[in-house]
């Protein structure tokens, strides 16, 4: 698809910003997301192409701002919904519950 992911040759993004001594994961959840992506692949939830396509279909604003692991969350969640494993409402409810517990 002619999506925002197809970045080659575009102008206007500015210089390449390099983080010195970048850690392997910036936050713990990034490692969990990496592992969940591999575990769901191994369980047969998606193949590499079905994994990639929902990332390409993300809202372009979101795509450009999201970290790579946030993009992975979007596609793993979408693939699990498409496969009938979870519903959006279940994830929303659990997410809201965890945010409420954190705030308490």
């Amino acid at each position, binding site marked *: 698809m002619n999506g925002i*992911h197809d970045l080659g040759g575009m102008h206007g993004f500015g210089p*390449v910003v390099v983080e010195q001594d970048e850690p392997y994961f910036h936050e713990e959840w990034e490692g969990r997301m990496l*592992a969940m992506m591999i575990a769901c692949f191994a369980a047969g939830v998606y193949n590499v192409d079905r994994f990639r396509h929902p990332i390409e279909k993300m809202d372009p604003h979101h795509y450009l701002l999201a970290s790579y692991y946030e993009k992975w969350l979007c596609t793993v969640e979408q693939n699990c919904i498409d496969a009938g494993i979870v519903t959006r409402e279940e*994830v929303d409810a659990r997410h809201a519950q965890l945010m409420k517990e954190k705030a308490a």
Partner: protein
Amino acid sequence: MKDGNHSHANVLIPDVGLRVKALESLLAEKKVIDPAALDLIVETFETQMGPKNGAKVVAKAWVDPAYRKWLLEDGTAAIGSLGYIGVQGENMVALENTPEVHNVVVCTLCSCYPWPTLGLPPIWFKSAPYRARVVIDPRSVLKEFGLDIADDVEVRVWDSTAELRYLVLPMRPEGTEGLSEQELASLVTRDSMIGTGLAQSPSH
């Protein structure tokens, strides 16, 4: 943003780490994933996958002409012989830098990267500026990394659009004749294997 009403805060997923946790807990309850397997994956990446692996491949190619030849002819087999093959490094191609040719690797459509040899990619490799610009203006991107490519050197940019993953074989630095393979490996930086850097000289 398109209508002036978007802020970063309402475009990004709020408290994204907790949404990852929410999904993980649901998938664990439904027996789709085992959190203990996730622990092991994270540990394996943190302890076993990183540019130190690729550096061993490069150092071996510098000291062993037969290995170098094999690596350039069949990267998958040669890298596999050292054990650095697997997820996101299933099909490997090595690219030889010479005084006449400088290779640099990108994935414009995604952020594909050879995990078993280089680990997970740095943020800049996944960023829009790098993916957009290194194909159309590689020399200015390389300059930002401190590499001034002479006009008579050919720059080859490799876009990993398919399932092949690329590893640059940087040139062996001068003044390294007496060094062991292990000492040589310590000179091989991550960026030198992407093509945005050179191997370090021993005096560095």
